[in-house]
């Protein structure tokens, strides 16, 4: 037999839906496990007005339990008067049996009291009311409300409940609603009950699908219907719909039977920047834009209604009016912005605070500009200096525009549009991509100028936030600093920018007024280090090798990656691994011994093994210069470490470090200290591998 639970609710916000359905499944599985009821499968699905759990092939009874629980020693069973002691009585009660059912059994530690527990399985039908109640009340939502006298906290009011086990109704009551077998039509189509005969998923889905209007209770089915109806409306006009994934998901969660309505809008709106129009459509009024095969915006919109395709013309007129009003607002904002221009916006930045205590966005713009120009110098990118200067100087200007005030998600993009209007096309591209990458895996700015400006802005933001001690903790990261740090690492690495993070942070810090108090800038390198580890991991590296890199923040990140790559290769090499083990041994000995800073005295080296180790160190003093090292360069460099293999092994076999003679002992420690310095400080601390 199967069981089915349907929670009928008033319209849940779309954003609550996926978490609710995931929880429903887990909650049910956990409860069935707790109650020891076997089943074949638990499924959860539904719409924003009905949350459904289906349990396929649920066992008719919960499992029996037979077990023996060991209690206190036998002498505590009864007192002198022959009464059960508090200990034995308590033990019996805890295990849910009468005290006179306790038994005494011999164990290898003497006689003990035992409780023999023999729980008979119960009928599933008897357990389901509690299970269903706890599934319903166990759901948690991002935001809760109360609406009736029991004060249950829930996403939205519960208005109906179905509890079915086979064809029997399982009676239970939550928030004043008692279960039955009734579900109800779409919200605008009355409350005439639809009776569900039995707990059969396929029959239930079909029953709802064959209503008028239909209810598509399976999210996947609804999604397919949505894509079909929207694509169809665009297709019959010879176009395609902009099937924005976020909008599709949202629409799936606020419809039960999606029906598309297509209308047109005035051509004049097409003179607006494309993203502005699509943002108005998608975000403000939740409509799909229509595109030509080449991706050009067409003067149509596709709205989705929940229900039937009746009275489409009038509904369409309504949507058209709303859309036209919203686009007229957009035109108004855009025209005003055009009149004002970037120069005026930048002036207005003087009145917009960047961060508490760190001045205005105007000052931030100037720092960003200087930092970007410094990067140009560093990279000898003289040809793009003018572009970089313009783009960085006006990068934040659009934040003072009307359009971005109304549509914050268009920041950057609108800046690019306004720069293009002033015929600064290269700067426009850089400004349009200023906030790139928008997600951890999305593309970086497409031009070198764009990358430098974007990098400068992000470093300045990170430095500023860390200066005032606004450092992300746990899940708290309101300014998305993790994402920005991730972007910084990606740009430096993927664009192979030959500047170290330390230089960059120092330069950025130097651009802040000298009186700026520092409440945490020292934590920024570690913060970036963690992002670097993630990025390297995504690029197929083993992030633990990163820990071994000496002064990772003083090297360009591409070089760090090369070194990490070399270290990874070398850990596969037998000789190198032997050196590595010896190096760890050296390190351990030194950790346990007194510190010796004196240099090694040749005349105190008694044994050949000591002298050999010393010669190896002397012979190998490699200097590392600043020119970029490829992975191959690093490999060659690190392979020189292999020369330590035999001398170190021999040293450990032949030489006793901790000898009573203080002079000899200290000299040997000095020798090992030198060896360690070579092995852990040249380019990488290989004992960290």
């Amino acid at each position, binding site marked *: 037999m199967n069981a089915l639970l349907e929670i009928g609710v*008033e*319209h849940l*916000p*779309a*954003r609550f839906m996926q978490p609710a359905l995931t929880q429903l499944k887990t909650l049910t599985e956990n409860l069935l496990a707790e109650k020891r009821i076997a089943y074949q499968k638990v499924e959860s699905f539904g719409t924003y007005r009905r949350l459904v759990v289906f349990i396929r092939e649920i066992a008719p009874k919960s499992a029996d339990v037979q077990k023996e629980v060991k209690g206190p020693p036998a002498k505590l069973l009864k007192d002198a008067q022959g009464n059960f002691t508090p200990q034995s009585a308590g033990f019996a009660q805890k295990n849910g049996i009468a005290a006179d059912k306790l038994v005494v059994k011999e164990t290898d530690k003497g006689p003990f009291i035992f409780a023999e527990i023999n729980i008979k399985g119960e009928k599933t039908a008897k357990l389901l009311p509690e299970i269903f109640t706890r599934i319903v009340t166990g759901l948690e939502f991002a*935001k809760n*409300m*109360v*609406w*009736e*006298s029991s*004060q249950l906290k829930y996403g*939205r*009011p519960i*208005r109906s409940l179905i509890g079915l086990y086979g064809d029997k109704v399982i009676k239970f009551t939550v928030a*004043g*609603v008692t279960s039955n077998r009734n579900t109800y039509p779409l*919200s*605008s*189509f*009355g*409350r005439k009950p639809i009776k569900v005969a039995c707990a059969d998923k396929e029959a239930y889905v079909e029953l709802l699908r064959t209503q008028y209007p239909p209810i598509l209770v399976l999210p996947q089915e609804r999604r397919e219907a949505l894509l079909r109806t929207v694509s169809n409306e665009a297709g019959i006009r010879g176009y395609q719909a902009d099937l924005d994934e976020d909008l599709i998901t949202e629409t799936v969660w*606020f419809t039960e039977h999606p029906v598309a*309505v297509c209308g047109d809008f005035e051509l004049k709106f097409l003179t607006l920047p494309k993203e502005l129009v699509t943002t108005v459509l998608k975000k403000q*009024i939740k*409509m799909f834009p229509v595109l030509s095969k080449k991706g050009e915006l067409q003067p149509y919109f596709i*709205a989705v*209604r*929940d*229900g*039937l395709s*009746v*009275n489409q013309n*009038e*509904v369409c*007129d*309504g*949507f058209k*009016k*709303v*859309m036209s*009003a919203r686009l007229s607002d957009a035109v108004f904002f855009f025209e005003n912005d055009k009149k004002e221009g970037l120069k005026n916006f930048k002036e207005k930045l003087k009145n917009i605070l960047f961060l508490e205590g760190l001045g205005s966005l105007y000052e931030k713009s100037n720092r960003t500009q200087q930092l970007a120009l410094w990067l140009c110098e560093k990279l000898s990118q003289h040809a793009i200096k003018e572009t970089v200067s313009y783009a960085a100087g006006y990068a934040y200007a659009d934040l003072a525009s009307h359009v971005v005030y109304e549509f914050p998600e268009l920041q950057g993009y609108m800046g690019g549009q306004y720069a293009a209007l002033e015929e600064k096309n290269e700067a426009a591209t850089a400004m349009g991509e200023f906030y790139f990458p928008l997600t951890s895996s999305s593309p970086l700015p497409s031009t070198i100028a764009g990358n430098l400006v974007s990098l400068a802005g992000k470093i300045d933001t990170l430095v500023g936030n860390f200066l005032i001690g606004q450092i992300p903790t746990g899940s708290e990261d309101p300014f998305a600093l993790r994402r920005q740090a991730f972007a910084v690492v990606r740009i430096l690495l993927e664009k192979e920018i030959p500047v170290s993070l330390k230089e960059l942070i120092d330069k950025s810090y130097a651009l802040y007024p000298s009186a700026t108090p520092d409440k945490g800038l020292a934590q920024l390198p570690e913060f970036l280090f963690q992002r670097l580890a993630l990025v390297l991991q995504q690029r197929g590296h083993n992030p633990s090798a990163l820990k071994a890199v000496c002064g990772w923040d003083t090297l360009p990140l591409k070089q760090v990656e090369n070194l990490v790559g070399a270290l990874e290769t070398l850990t596969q090499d037998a000789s190198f691994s032997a050196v590595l083990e010896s190096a760890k041994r050296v390190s351990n000995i030194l950790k346990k011994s007194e510190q010796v800073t004196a240099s090694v005295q040749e005349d105190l080296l008694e044994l050949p093994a000591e002298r050999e180790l010393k010669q190896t160190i002397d012979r190998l003093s490699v200097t590392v210069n600043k020119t970029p090292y490829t992975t191959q360069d690093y490999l060659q460099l690190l392979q020189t470490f292999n020369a330590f293999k035999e001398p170190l092994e021999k040293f450990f076999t032949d030489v006793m470090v901790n000898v009573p003679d203080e002079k000899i002992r200290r000299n040997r420690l000095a020798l090992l200290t030198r060896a360690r310095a070579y092995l852990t400080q040249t380019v990488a601390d290989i004992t960290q591998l």
Partner: protein
Amino acid sequence: MPGSVPSSKYSIIVYMKYGMNFQDMISALNHYWTKQGCVLVQPYDVEKGAGTYNPETFFGSLTKKPVNRAYVEPCRRPADGRYGDNPNRLGKYYQYQVIMKPAPANIQEIYLGSLKAIGLNPKEHDVRWIEDDWQSPTLGASGVGWEIWLDGMEITQFTYFQNMAGYALNPITVEITYGLERIAMYCQKVDNVFDLRWNDTITYRDVHHENERQFSHYYFEESNVEHLRRYIQECEEECYALCKKGLYLPAYDNAMKLSHYFNMLEARGAISVSDRTNNITKIRNLAKACAKAYVQSVEKQEEASK
């Protein structure tokens, strides 16, 4: 436009073609909500920014007593005035407000019935319930609910109050607020609010245009900032003094007035950012003081009746 208003002898045809006139719509809502058991009360005679400020709603939501009310509420938003030149913006407009406590279990269905009562059959339109959790920092109030879109246009705010004046509420009041002009514009298919037919011979322009024009001048140019600041101070003093005496109703009138004067100062551009925050806190504290005086008086009555 007045010339093009159809005369009343064609009203049946007009009705079918253009939907209800403004006053018929209000009558239809009155009739509908009366049938649902609401007491029909008249607008409260102190200026306010929204129907929620009406004492029926403010005090009504606070205690255990059942409350069912319906009323038209004129709302003043000084900063929204446009001298009667803007087709969509008004400095004074009408809300239709319903409150029911406890909220009936079928309140959504009842609401949809009200749309039908004004000629909008929900089955023939797209009625969408968009998550929108209302809050009023000045009343110290918040609620959970939706804005309701009819074919994409926002026509109603539907809220289950959760807090009022800082009090967690129980039982819960549902508040339904219709934007009357918007709905009427949709039904009558007009693009300019002043073209709305108030009845079949008179337009919204005839009734309100001069009012809009004059009050815009007053709010934006002529209001006396010094006086307003003084009124605000006087209202605050009076409100607290009355609260102390348990006269929460006149005390609350003073809080409403203060709120309106504050809105006027804002329209005049005489409010800085920090001023704004301070004044909002000031109003919230007054609202809390009034609520406290009311709740205490109800508790006293209950004790006395024991």
